[in-house]
Structures are given as C-alpha cells and as structure tokens.
C-alpha cells in the first residue's frame, strides 16, 4: 500500500542531496578533525566550511555556532548553562514548550533552585504578552526567558522580536527554541533581540543526530558536556562530521527554496483545511485565522465521535502517517500538554498533519476523502 507521510514536524524525510554529501564524507573524510595530519586537517576544513555556511544562513558570525547532537541537547545546554553560568535566579517560560524545554527548566529548578513562572497562552497557543511584561517587570534578579518561536503541535508563531525587546528592556536573557522555524523561515539573528536559539537538522530535510546552538557573542557560558577541546571548548566529543556537513547542505537548500516551498506547502495545507471543512461536519482548526502560522502544520480538531478515539491508528491502516500530540509523548498515550493548555473541549480529538515539499495535492485529497469515509459513512444502496 502507498504511504502518505504527513508527519514532517516530527522528522522530515532527508533530502537525497544531503545523503550524497554525507555518504561522500563517510567514505572520504574519515579522520578525526582534531588530528593534525593531512586527513585530519581536511576534516577540520570541511567542518569549518559548514559552520561558516550555517552562520551565513542565519546572519551569525562563525564563533557563535556550536554543534550539538540535536534540538534537545541545544535547548538543554542553553537553559541549564545559562542558569548555572549567568547567575539566573528566575525562569519565565510557557506551558506549551517542547518537553525538552519543559524538563530542562524543571531540572534547572531542581539543581539550582531557580523559580519558574509559566506565562499562559490563549486558545491558539500564543503567549500572553501583557502577562509576560508584568512578570518581567516584577523580577529584580537575573532572569532567563525561554519561549519557543513556533509551536510544534499547533503551529502558532510567537513574535520573538517583541518578546526579545521586552527581555532587553528588562535586562532578561532570552532563549528561543527555534527548532520548528530554522530552515522554514529566514532567520537573521543579527536583527533578533535574542541570546540563544537552537536548530535540529532533521526538521528541515537534514540528518538526525545533529543540531546547533547559536550563542550571542555577548553571552559566555560553559559546556554542558565536558571533555576534549572541540567546538572551541564548548562541546566536547569527536564531531559528527557527516551530520554537520549534511545539516549545512540541508539549510542551504531550505533557504534557497524558501519562497517556492512555502507557497507550495501552504497550498497543500489550505487545500486540506478546505477539503476537510467541506467534508466533515463539526470540524475545526487549532489556529488563529488572523495571524501568520506555520505553513507546515495544520492541527485539526475533530468533533467527539466514536471513531475519534483510534483515529491515528485508523488513518494508519489507510496508509496515512500523522500524529496526535507530539511524537515524544505519543508512545506514552498521555494527552498532549499543548492541546490541554488551549483549554478547548476535552472530548474533541486533535490531530497534527504536517507537510513538506515532498508531499502532493493528490495526497491531500486522498487524506480528506479517507477521513470523510471514516467520519461520514455512506449508506450502501440508499
């Protein structure tokens, strides 16, 4: 049976061009980049070229890019090391962050005794700016704000320029989890009032197991993972050279094709929305119609229905991969903390469809028809 992959927000399909770069590196750049012999130096040069490319793509200087094993590590490093090394006493965050941020914040509270405030969100998942401002103004000791750029489950986008300016005005450090936007939107850190942002290769058709943390050159933190002198003493461990090269290639391609991919994917999303709206009564969408929203994510709210319980599995039988909640918790059959925070009807079922340029309109129509068949069974021979 054909498979339709509408789960790109969990992990995208790697681009063939990226695999090529990686396999070529596996076979040709096999030395340790820290070695001073010829082979080692060639590996070092390739890594530094990739670093320069990524820095250029996001408007950073090369000294501000640190490679990690992925989004989770980047976020952990930013939060835990900022708390430990910048004397942070309070963390302000939201209740709809990715689990890695939620739990890194909890660990920081446990290990360093910082206090936590969680800004509330509206029915679309956007954070309450007034509340954030009030909280920021009430803090007299060093504060770290960690608020995501775009939410991975519902796709709402927070205005990180505005949040960053509030942080600056109140002398707070600002980390933003940009894992869902790097490679999907142009990001220019030069124009963003932020201190730390994170990226993960596998969210933009790059490889798994590689990510980066951008650290504003004005902030100095120490490593999360100690050991060798790699990453200018900021992240020990032999560099994942193929991952680094693959991620750089993926980001170059993503930014190069930004306009065309965005238009293409947005059309897929808009089509799925209108097709579903026409076919299934009582359906709604977890998104703010008046705001820019991740073009890669459509979070659909299905009405209470006997078929809704096992909807993800049911779709799967029909060859469709989508998620309810985020991948990280879907094994644990727990409800989504994000959907819960939106405060809607708990009897409705939220499903995240997430797209890439590798999907087609035909797939969208097939999915809409399949869902219609599940929800609105036709009476035979009526």
């Amino acid at each position: 049976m054909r498979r339709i992959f509408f789960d790109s927000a969990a992990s995208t399909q790697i681009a063939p061009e990226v695999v090529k770069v990686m396999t070529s590196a596996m076979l040709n750049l096999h030395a340790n980049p820290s070695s001073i012999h010829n082979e080692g130096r060639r590996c070092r040069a390739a890594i530094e070229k990739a670093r320069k490319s990524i820095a250029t793509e996001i408007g950073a200087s090369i000294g501000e890019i640190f490679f990690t094993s992925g989004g989770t590590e980047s976020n952990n490093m930013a939060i835990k090391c900022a708390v430990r090394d910048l004397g942070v006493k309070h963390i302000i965050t939201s209740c709809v962050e990715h689990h890695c941020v939620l739990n890194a914040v909890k660990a920081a509270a446990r290990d360093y005794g910082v206090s936590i405030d969680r800004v509330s969100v509206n029915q679309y998942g956007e954070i309450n700016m007034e509340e954030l401002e009030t909280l920021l103004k009430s803090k007299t000791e060093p504060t770290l704000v960690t608020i995501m750029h775009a939410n991975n489950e519902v796709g709402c986008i927070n205005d990180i320029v505005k949040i960053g300016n509030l942080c600056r005005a109140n002398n707070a450090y600002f980390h933003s989890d940009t894992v869902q936007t790097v490679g999907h939107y142009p990001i220019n850190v030069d124009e963003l009032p932020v201190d730390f942002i994170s990226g993960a290769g596998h969210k933009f058709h790059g490889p798994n197991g590689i990510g980066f943390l951008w650290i504003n050159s004005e902030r100095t933190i120490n490593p999360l993972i100690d050991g060798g002198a790699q990453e200018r003493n900021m992240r020990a461990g032999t560099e994942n050279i193929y991952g680094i090269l693959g991620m750089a290639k993926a980001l170059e391609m993503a930014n190069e094709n930004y306009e065309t991919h965005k238009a293409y994917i947005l059309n897929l999303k808009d089509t799925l929305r209108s097709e579903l709206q026409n076919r299934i009564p009582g359906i709604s969408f977890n998104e703010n119609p008046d705001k820019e929203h991740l073009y890669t994510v459509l979070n659909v709210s299905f009405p209470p229905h006997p078929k809704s319980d096992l909807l993800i599995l049911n779709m799967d039988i029909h060859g469709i991969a989508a998620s309810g909640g985020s991948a990280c918790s879907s094994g644990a059959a727990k409800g989504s903390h994000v959907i819960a925070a939106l405060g809607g009807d708990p009897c409705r079922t939220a499903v995240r469809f997430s797209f890439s340029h590798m999907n087609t309109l035909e797939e969208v129509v097939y999915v809409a028809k399949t869902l219609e068949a599940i929800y609105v069974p036709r009476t035979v021979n009526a």
Partner: protein
Amino acid sequence: MANPRKIYLDNNSTTPCDPRVVEAMLPYFYEVPGNAASRNHPFGWAAEEAVSVAREQIADLIGVEEKEIIFTSGATEADNLALKGVFEMYKRKGNHIITVKTEHKAVLDSCAKIEKMGGEVTYLDVDRKGRLNLEELEAAIKDTTILVSVMWANNETGTIQDMKAIGDICEKHGVLFMSDATQAVGKIKTHPKEVGVHLMAFTGHKMYGPKGVGVLFVNRKKPRVKVTAQIDGGGHERGMRSGTLNVPAIVGMGKAAAIAKAEMEQDAARVSKLRDKLEKELSANLEEVYLNGDIDNRMPHVTNLSFKHVEGEGLMMTFNENIAVSSGSACTSASLEPSYVLIALGLGDDLAHSSIRFSLGRFTTEEEVDLAIAALTKGVSHMRDLSPIWEMYKEGIDLDAVEWSEH
C-alpha cells in the same frame, strides 16, 4: 578509502566507517523517515524496529541485555552521563569518586566539573606501564565512595587494565564500577558483566561505525543502576537520555557491532602481527627507541614509541602528507603540551615529546606497514642528522648534566 596513497595509522583517533556499515545505513536515510518515538504509524515503527535490532547487535557484542543499552551522541556524552549521572543519583550515599590520571579528557573534565559541584575526586597514579596499583585503589575507597571509573584500554598507549581485579575490589566494597571502554569495544572482548563493570561507555566511530552515536551500558539487575539524565526532554532511552534517536547512525553502529563480533578475533590476530613487525623493525633500524605502555597487557593494534632526541611533531612533518599517525592524543594534539598520559607513566618531557602513536586497523595492509617503517626510519635518521643534541649525545655528553641558560 578514497585516497589509497595515504597510509592511515591513526585508528585510535577514529576508524574509517566500514563500507558495509555505510551500506546498512543507507536505507534508513532514504526509505524510512520517521521519528522512532512516533509509535503510532509504521514509519515510526520501522525506525523503532531498526533501533531495536541495533540494540540487540550491540548488546550481543558486549554480552548484556538490550534494555541495558542507552544511546548517546558519542563516548564523551556517555562518559559525562555516567559520571555526572551517578554523582547526582547517588548523592545521598556519598560524593567520592575514584579515577585515574591517564583517563580520557571526557572523564577527567567531567570529574573536574563534579568537583565544582561539591564532589570529591581521587586521581590514582599509574606505573611505568600505565597500570594502576590495586592496593592503592583499595586503600582509596572510603565510606563516601560511590564510583570507581577506570578505562578499559588507554587511547595513547593501548595499555589494558586488570578489569576483573578492579571489579572484584569494587564488589567487595559495594561501590559502582564504570569503565570508558571506547578504545576496547569491538577490538577485544569486553563483557562488562564478566568483570563486574556496571556502566560502560563507548562510541561508534572507534569500531568502524559512524560518528555521532555512542552507547552507555547501564546495569539493570544486581545491582540496578540508575543515572540522572543530563539531557532532559521527551523521556527517550528509559528517561536517561532524551532527543530524537539518530536512527541511521544507530543502525550503523549495530552493524559495526555485528561485524566486530564476527571478525574481531581474526582482525586482532592479523593486525597484531603487523604491529609487532612495525615495532621490531623500527627498533632494529634505529637506536634509542623506547616502547611506552605495557607489552604484556595492551591492545593488539597499538604501539606507542619514543624516538629519543627527535621531536614527535617535527618528525610527523617529515611524512605528514603520506602517513597519518599521532603524537599525543588527537584531542590535545593541536597543542604542543607533552601528553599528560605519558607524563603520568613517568616519562620525562623529552621522551614524551618524542613519542609517536601508531594505531593500526582493519584496513591496514602489510605493504602500508612496510612503507611506514621505511618512512619512519628515514625521517628519524634525517632529524637526528640535523640535531645538535643528537650530535652531543653521540659524542657521549651527558645531556642531563648540561645547564641550558636562557638567552
């Protein structure tokens, strides 16, 4: 390998990825996208299934259960997780850790961080061969000791510690035993349970697998060992290490483990012969060649030699474009500090500075070894011919008695 003219004798820094490993990984790039934690659709299942096969292959290589394998991004992260994770988890039992001066930076720097966090760390000395003294180890254990961390084999000298004896001491005193086995796994038999190791770190790229993936073995029964996660998130890897799993790399490491299990013994037999040849001929061709390490207890593919009165880095320059070896370990070889490992063995600065580590591997050929012998012989002779120190030495001047003045 891409460039057959280059002779790669630096397999302790990193091994090339076996082509069979690359081949095993490819389908997981192309055909199976998916997040191994997305358990509700087959893309996720296929990824999960592949991870579980790899877990089995790795568990099989080291004789443990699948559930005892925690995937990380490499040995450095695994070392950090084991040390800091045990320190945090067993705080109530004590705060004292014992390790050795010749450990890798990943262990030493984690210990330094632990000291900053309120821990106490004892760094044991080693003898001239790089082995620790078992009595000193036992004497260092006290009521507050929670962990002993000793590497299985040293990355610079290849010296193998007496793991069973150390494990027995740890068991006798009821302390956990952790080992950085990065240099040993896949090359010699490393079964943690047979020697009483409770936590063991290793990495893909030192066993002909990919970079960007490593493992921490965590004993699950008798005793049940737990570590506090250092990277928090979605609760992957039984809550000990979060983050989307690097499926292709994990598959690659699994394949590398399966190959190692099948071929390790014959590889070791073949490569140790080549290593012995290299060592013997260099010692025959050249004067004043010293072996660093333990000739009776060492890895089959490694030899570390000091060529007296020849500066190692300079020597490397004489054949750098053709032969890859290292002086000191890769992580510190960009600096000109003498190797702290060799200093711990009791070498003077001069012998430490004149050391070269040769680490052979699965793809090393006899022809390459012959070429290396010729190049080294020529390089060392050339350097010595130019060296006034060598001249003085040959004239019988006691160099240690010479007083060098600053100018």
